[in-house]
Structures are given as C-alpha cells and as structure tokens.
C-alpha cells in the first residue's frame, strides 16, 4: 500500500499536467493557425503557460520523494 501511495503521489499530478499541457499546446497551435505571423509571441506565451502547469507535477515528485525517503 505504501508503494501504491508513492506511485500515485506522482502519477496523479503527472496526469493532470499531461492533460493541461495538451490543452495548452492545442490552444497554441490553433492560435498559430489563425495568425501565422506571431509565431515567436505565441511560442513565448505557450512556454510560460506550460511551465506553470509543469511545476505542479514537479512539486508532486518532490513530495513523493520526501514522503518515501524521509
């Protein structure tokens, strides 16, 4: 059960982050399709948004490691 908890502590945030990043990417690609000139602006905004979503998954792995090894 402990091993299941360790696995899930990272797996669930990773699931959320994967879905979130998928939506962000889809939105960015749609925006690029409508306005192909603004590629670099869209890229910057997309990376900023992806980082916000990704950091929650990273905090998940840190919590999992802390709970298991300390």
């Amino acid at each position: 059960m402990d091993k299941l908890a360790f696995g899930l502590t990272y797996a669930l945030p990773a699931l959320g982050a994967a879905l979130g990043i998928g939506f962000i990417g889809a939105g960015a690609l749609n925006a690029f399709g409508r306005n192909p000139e603004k590629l670099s602006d869209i890229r910057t905004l997309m990376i900023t948004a992806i980082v916000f979503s990704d950091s929650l998954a990273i905090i998940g792995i840190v919590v999992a490691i802390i709970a298991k090894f300390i």
Partner: protein
Amino acid sequence: MINNFAALDIHISLASQTLFTVAGFNVTNAMVTGTLSLVIFLVVFVYVSRMVAAGRYNRFIGLIQWAFEGMLSQIDGVIPDKVLARKIAPLALTLFFYVLISYWMSILPGLEAITYNGVPVLRSIAADMNFTFAIAIIALVIVQVYAIRQHGPIGNVRRYLRNPLKDPIGAFEGILELIGEVSRYSALSLRLFGNCFAGEILLIIITALTGYLSVAALPVFMAFELFIGLVQAYVFFILTVIFTALAIDVHGGTQAHPDHTSTSDHSSAGNVPTSVPARE
C-alpha cells in the same frame, strides 16, 4: 529492491550534507559546488567583457553575446517601457546565467561516487532549497521596490487592499493578489529546486540500475538534464521579468517617471559586455 541491482547504496538526502566546519559554520557540499560555479561565472564574464571592451572577438564571445542579446530582446518584448527594461535587465540576466551554470554543474561525473568522509562532494547548488528560496526572495523584494518606486508606498498597498464598499470585486482581487504573491515566489523556488533535485536523483538511479552499462545510458540523461537546465533557467528569468511587468503596469499603461533622476544601477555582479546598444 533497487539495492539488489545496485553497485552502490542509494542515499537520498533532501538537505545538502555538511562537508566540514569552519569556525562553527557548516560548509555543505552544495556550497562548495556553488562557489565553483560562481568562479566559473565570474571568469567567463570578466573575460568576455574585457575582450569586448578591447574590441577583440572570437567564436566563444560571439556565443555569449548571442545568448545575451537574445535574452535582452525577450525583456524588451515583455516590458514595453525602455527605462524600466534597462533597469531590470542586470538582475534578470545575472539570475539567468548563474542559475544556468549552477544547474549544469549537476551533470559532472562522480555525482554520488566522489566522497569526502562518506559525504558526496558534488551537488548542484540549485538542488539546495536555501539557494532557490534566496533568489526567489531577492526577486520578491526587488519587484516590491520597483512597485513602490512606481506607485509610491500608499499606492503599492492599495494594490492589495482596495476599498470593499466602492469596489467589491476589486477588493476580492486584492486579496487574491496577496495570496498570489506568496504562491508565485514559492512556486518559482520549488520549481527550480524540484527539477534540479529530481534530475540528480534520476542520474543516480540510472547509474545504479544499469551498472556498467551506464557508460552508454548516462550521456542520454545528461543531455536531457542540459536541456531541462536551459529551460528552467529561462523560465526563472522570464517569470522574474513578467512579475516586474505585472507589478508596475496595473490598470492601464506604464508611465515613464520624469521626476526620477535615473540612477543607473550598475550591479557589479553582472559584468555584462558593452555590446548593449543605446536604445533611448
């Protein structure tokens, strides 16, 4: 179970371990690696600035200049006000290059193997929460200072505490801004710490799992770590700039302050080359 395969015992310690004490002060392995990365940072940038001032260029200087100008143009993209962009640039660029060099030190071979009195010597300072919190707090204080310079102290407090009778939605927004300050900077520090710490643990576990085959398997993960280090340093840099822009530019348009005698703050840590053209 991993210890069955392992050539080495895996000890994962969240805090960085003490190597030796100097007059009662614990010097940890992250501090030693951090000093090394500081020395590398200073050597590279003093060299580049001296060569550019003397007018002699080569490919390495061209590379540093390209990275520098790229980041500077990113700042101009986020902050339209040229005076403020020039002011925030030294701190933001110093953070970018120093976090980058510190993160990249986590790849050096011998991550757990080189020990001194049983304590591993190499550990990137970005994997030490003291460092990441310190630079996040520096960013927080600097953003507040710029906000106070722009709006005045009362105006700055009024960003957070708005009158609930005249503007109820604004009052709620103000409370959210207050919570947002804390959460943004904690996330800034935890993101960098989590990425670097998890990267080091990944390298240790891959070494333990593959044994002698790690000669072939590790360089792939080291390249991955280089890429992630670049992304995380860029993200720290651009988020600092974005938070400054958000704090200054509230409810309509930046105003260049004509009253301020622009004391050009030359932060001595960012010995940047004189290649920045006069943009005024």
